[in-house]
């Protein structure tokens, strides 16, 4: 059976109509999706401001990708696992990771789950869903998702594993070994390629000569499906189909979600240096949030007043999280030395003691009372 597609699936029409498609979601669930998208946009905007005013060092713009993130996340159960990329705020927010926990990471403070060791946006959560610790090297997590899926399969569990990466990520070694292993093992994995047109300044034509990315699944014996990534229902539909197939033992799927990054690659990047202005204009008209709002309005679930109220509420929530996270101090000096191993080896302990000793002798406020606590 050849399941591979080359034309992007669309569900939500520009006028908000869905041609009889039934999302099988309650009003509350639909509004939860909408709220998650609003949360991403607010989180994004506030992080940009925090970075511009020098209060955090770095952020990754997510504007324009919200439907892909939330649509895909909505197809997963809380017992499933996400191996995210760094541009997946919406997957965490949809599943109920508190904005405050994410803000602790953005500030790298003492309450950050990763103890301020990682750059901003390199989140790691085990609750309320496994949102696996993000690594900067591109593509390394793809075979890891396959291994985790294989573990679940061997134990007879029906957990599904979603690995998310960009168009650029398909050139990494991890992409190819990951898809190859998953094809051979029929692993319960959904590979989500977020084709946002660019890998920093490199357009997709510089990334591949193939006709898109979904077709790359073929060679590994994996169905590849193309979807309009700015269409929440379309992304949800194809991801759900892939998840259901994976859960039932039908093996992996490669999904290519076609979308666009409305901001820079990161706060250090100026996309105007390389993205043609027409692309911004084209995609601005296809804003995923506006498109879902049209649907909700057409379905009688949203009006201007309600949307405005929700937006304000969400912005207040994120702003409060940012204020709270900013109040928290830096992690303790001992966190430089802990968690390298399960048990701290002597040579690392000595280095820690040496740093505290230096602080004591030369007067360093960070060293606290000067005792190495580990």
């Amino acid at each position, binding site marked *: 059976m050849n399941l591979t597609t080359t034309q992007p699936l669309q569900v939500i029409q520009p006028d908000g109509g869905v041609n009889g498609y039934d999302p099988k979601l309650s009003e509350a669930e639909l509004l939860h999706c909408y709220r998650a998208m609003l949360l991403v946009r607010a989180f994004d905007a506030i992080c940009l401001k925090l970075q511009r005013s020098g209060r955090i*060092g*770095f952020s990754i713009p997510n504007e324009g990708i919200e439907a892909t993130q939330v649509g895909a996340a909505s197809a997963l159960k809380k017992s499933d696992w996400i191996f995210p990329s760094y541009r997946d705020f919406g997957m965490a927010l949809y599943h109920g990771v508190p904005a405050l926990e994410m803000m602790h990471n953005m500030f*790298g*403070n003492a309450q950050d789950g990763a103890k*301020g*060791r*990682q*750059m901003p946006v*390199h989140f790691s959560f085990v609750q309320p869903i496994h949102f696996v610790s993000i*690594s*900067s*090297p*591109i593509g390394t997590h793809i075979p890891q998702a396959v291994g985790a899926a294989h573990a679940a399969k061997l134990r007879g569990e029906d957990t599904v594993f979603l690995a998310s990466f960009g168009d*650029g*990520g398909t*050139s*990494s*070694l991890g992409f190819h070994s990951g898809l190859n292993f998953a094809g051979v093992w029929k692993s319960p994995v959904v590979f989500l390629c977020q084709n946002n047109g660019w*890998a*920093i*300044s*490199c357009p997709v034509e*510089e*990334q*591949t000569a193939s006709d898109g990315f979904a077709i790359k699944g073929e060679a590994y014996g994996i169905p590849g499906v193309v979807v309009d990534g700015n269409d929440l229902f379309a992304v949800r539909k194809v991801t759900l189909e892939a998840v259901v197939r994976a859960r039932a033992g039908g093996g992996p799927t490669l999904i290519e979600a076609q979308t666009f990054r409305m901001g820079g690659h990161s706060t*250090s*990047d100026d996309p105007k*240096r*390389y993205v043609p202005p027409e692309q911004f204009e084209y995609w601005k008209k296809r804003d995923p949030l506006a498109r879902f709002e049209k649907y909700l309005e057409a379905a009688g679930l949203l009006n201007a007043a309600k949307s405005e109220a929700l937006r304000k509420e969400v912005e207040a929530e994120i702003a409060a999280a940012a204020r709270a996270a900013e109040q928290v101090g*830096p*992690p303790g*000096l001992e*966190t*430089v*030395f802990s968690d*390298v191993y399960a048990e701290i080896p002597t*040579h*690392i302990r000595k*280095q*820690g003691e040496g*740093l505290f000793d*230096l602080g004591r*002798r*030369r007067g360093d406020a*960070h060293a606290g009372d000067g005792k190495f606590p580990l």
Partner: protein
Amino acid sequence: MANLTLLQAINDGLRTAMKDDPSVLVFGEDVGKKGGVFLATENLQRDFGANRCFDTPLSEDGIVGCAIGMAMNGLRPVAEIQFQDFIFPAFDQIVSEAAKLRYRSGGQYTAPLVIRTPYGGGIRGGLYHSQSGEAYFCHTPGLKVVVPSTPHDAKGLLLAAIADPDPVLFLEPKALYRSVKGEVPEGNYKVPLSTLREARAGTQVTVFCYGAMVPVTLKAAEEAAASGIDTRVIDLRTLLPLDEEGVLEHAKSTGRVVVVHEAPRFCGFGAEISALIAEHAIEYMEAPVVRVTGFDTPFPNTLEHHYLPDHRRVLDALERVAHF
């Protein structure tokens, strides 16, 4: 002479090599239109065309593997790896291939290529935009490893690396890209590889350091001078092949040595210097060789200023060694 930042000096070096030698190509991720994420290759594509300076797919393995093939077949590739932290997919190509090609073919095939890559901390880059991985590569016979610390040397060493018949890993201290400025001669000049530079004259203690640790050490040396310690600072510039004779001469002449690097200590480059001195100059030494290094932990983010050796830590070592 122009007064350039280290970053501008690298751009100037690339430009000079491309002008003088049509076989020099510059490529990597985002080096074309964007000019590199740090702008080291700014306007090279505009000025030399997309056949000479171009973007590649996102694959370090592909970048270095293709560079080796180009080098085998008459080109002088200068590949950029966006951050040294992302070089590891290419580790196989560097260690198994580029470094061994001459040896395994009895000199029939060679890989005269340069891999440029920014390394080191100081930009709040956390675990994966801060590492100093020189030790992995210094353990690789067949490879040359170069680390400039001034604009003058950055250009001159880069031009020497590009002209060199062997593969060179050119580690650029990103913390110094825009923070140091200096006089840079025009045109093609080369700073010979495997030569040391005396960054500061002194008679009592010698500090061996390289890259971003050079200014840190110079600052500590100034402070030490105030308390009567006269410190010589040697910028190693080329780690492999190391000018061992030069290192030993300096060690013998002061009898007191400190080594500074920001990479982790265990099996770091300081161990090599220390062992070299222990083997060949122990009778001249008046104090143990002391290493000031990054810790044997991954590179943290918020607390990176505690991880990185600073002038206080170097000063502390200078005082210990001087008063031993």
